[in-house]
């Protein structure tokens, strides 16, 4: 036999028992050629182009899933930041672009389309301003559109005017979707150092430096890593690290296989492979439980940051060895509502917002799917964002904030977002004001170590 029984059983178990899957195949499509002085014309071009290039995405995804026996959970599309495309028009409200994207997503049968976005780390252009102002209406009025704004980078510093706006945008988005626990905010990400090729929602967009189209693949598999390290209980960190790395290698190779095959069938270039341990609310698909398997009683206790740092790094190292096109975020995600173990940790009282923030220094993204009290002030939300952006800027890494002030609810109450977004207990924030700090505006300069020229 070409493969040993152990190898075959290991692979089959990964899919059947440990919930390994391709979390998303995301087709990135440039809309730069869809700009027009007429908004109506621009949206017509967008619709035509998306249907032309992504028309067979779902069909091809399903075919590969059946043929290879690998579950492909989500098929998605990411597009050029809409602020760049819509800016050519004289329309003030950009939400019709979101409605067009939403309509196309439903026609294609994809679950999310990302790219209602703006890149404003250095400054806010008129198109960016209009897009930012349109975000609450766009998100509350659509089902499948995801928005993001990059407000900081290691090279440019933090645009504190934009950070101040983000607090307001998030409050308004929550208010417009108050009947659904502020669900609109779950489709909105604020970034520092946003990757241009990220296949994961809600932060996916097709960066302006990308080609006309490409297929990016997001692989997940927290259950596989947990199962692998269950075999090294009591072993030293060297053994643990090596086990994680080897497992990440195998998972990435599988993702590379599917990604290149899907790109070939779609007739587009293969973009990147993003190996991110992306949890779901299902039991057995949790990143928090991996940290606990390492020896922590409950995630959030002392040692959690070190455990997560090692996990993220080993996932990256295994992934980089397995594929020459690793990109996106690659590492470990620590969303709260989307991870059954994280939810349990908040409930148990071991995980607070401050510890979560510390852990984002070493995870692959940031504060993700965190429900906070509905009466949290816009300036406090902006200050939470500013802290997270500072972590990304200084550490030369991507950080993001996806935070939901749940209307009418207080700390300790439950917020439900449904499906893969899950639900979470609301985490308390500091009551002390950051108002005067956020009111300053302007820019926090880039750190000294950004000058590498």
């Amino acid at each position: 036999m070409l493969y040993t029984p152990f190898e075959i059983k290991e692979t089959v178990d990964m899919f059947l028992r440990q919930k390994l899957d391709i979390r998303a195949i995301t087709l990135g499509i440039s809309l730069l050629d869809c700009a027009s002085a007429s908004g109506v014309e621009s949206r017509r071009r967008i619709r035509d182009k998306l249907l032309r290039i992504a028309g067979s995405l779902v069909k091809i995804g399903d075919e590969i899933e059946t043929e290879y026996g690998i579950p492909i959970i989500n098929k998605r599309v990411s597009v050029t930041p809409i602020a760049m495309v819509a800016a050519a028009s004289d329309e003030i409200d950009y939400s019709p672009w979101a409605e067009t994207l939403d309509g196309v997503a439903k026609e294609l049968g994809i679950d999310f389309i990302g790219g209602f976005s703006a890149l404003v780390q250095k400054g806010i252009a008129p198109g960016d301003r209009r897009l930012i102002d349109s975000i609450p209406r766009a998100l509350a009025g659509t089902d499948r559109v995801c928005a993001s704004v990059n407000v900081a980078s290691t090279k440019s510093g933090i645009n504190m005017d934009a950070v101040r706006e983000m607090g307001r945008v998030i409050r308004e988005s929550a208010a417009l979707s108050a009947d659904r626990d502020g669900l609109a905010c779950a489709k909105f990400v604020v970034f520092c150092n946003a990757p241009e090729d990220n296949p994961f929602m809600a932060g996916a967009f097709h960066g302006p430096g990308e080609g006309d189209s490409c297929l990016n693949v997001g692989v997940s598999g927290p259950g596989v890593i947990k199962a692998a390290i269950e075999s090294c209980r009591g072993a030293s960190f060297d053994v643990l690290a090596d086990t994680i790395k080897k497992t990440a290698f195998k998972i990435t190779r599988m993702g590379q296989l599917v990604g290149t095959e899907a790109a070939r069938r779609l007739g587009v270039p293969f973009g990147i492979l993003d190996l991110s341990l992306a949890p779901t609310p299902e039991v057995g698909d949790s990143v928090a439980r991996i940290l606990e398997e390492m020896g922590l009683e409950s995630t959030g206790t002392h040692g959690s940051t070190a455990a997560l740092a090692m996990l993220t790094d080993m996932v990256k190292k295994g992934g980089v060895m397995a594929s020459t096109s690793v990109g996106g975020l690659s590492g470990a995600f620590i969303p709260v509502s989307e991870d059954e173990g994280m939810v349990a940790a908040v409930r148990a009282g071991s995980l607070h917002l401050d510890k979560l923030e510390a852990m984002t220094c070493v995870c692959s993204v940031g504060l993700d799917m965190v429900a906070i009290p509905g009466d949290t002030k816009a300036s406090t939300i902006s200050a939470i964002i500013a802290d997270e952006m500072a972590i990304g800027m200084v550490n030369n890494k991507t950080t993001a904030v996806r935070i939901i002030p749940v209307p009418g609810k207080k700390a300790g109450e439950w917020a439900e977002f449904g499906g893969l977004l899950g639900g979470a207990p609301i985490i308390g924030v500091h009551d002390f004001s950051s108002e005067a700090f956020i009111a300053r505006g302007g820019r926090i300069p880039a750190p000294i170590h950004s000058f590498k020229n």
Partner: protein
Amino acid sequence: MKAIVSVVGSDKVGIIANVSNFLADRDINIDDISQTVLEGNFVMMMMVDLSKSTAQIGPLKEELETLGETLGVSIAMMHERVFGAMHRI
């Protein structure tokens, strides 16, 4: 295409016979076969050639799963390339 059929469960009379007959009925050739006991489980693996198969791959997988249920074992079929990607550099 080549695929790997894995059968895992408790051992009993007729598992190999049943699975082989099922495949033969659909003109699926068995290129290689091996059997062992891993962690207390009966584990059988077959490398099969689907190039002349009379069954479509989607329904075929579902029928294999159903066959597994009647035999009290878990049967899975995956593309051979998945194993190559994971275990061979």
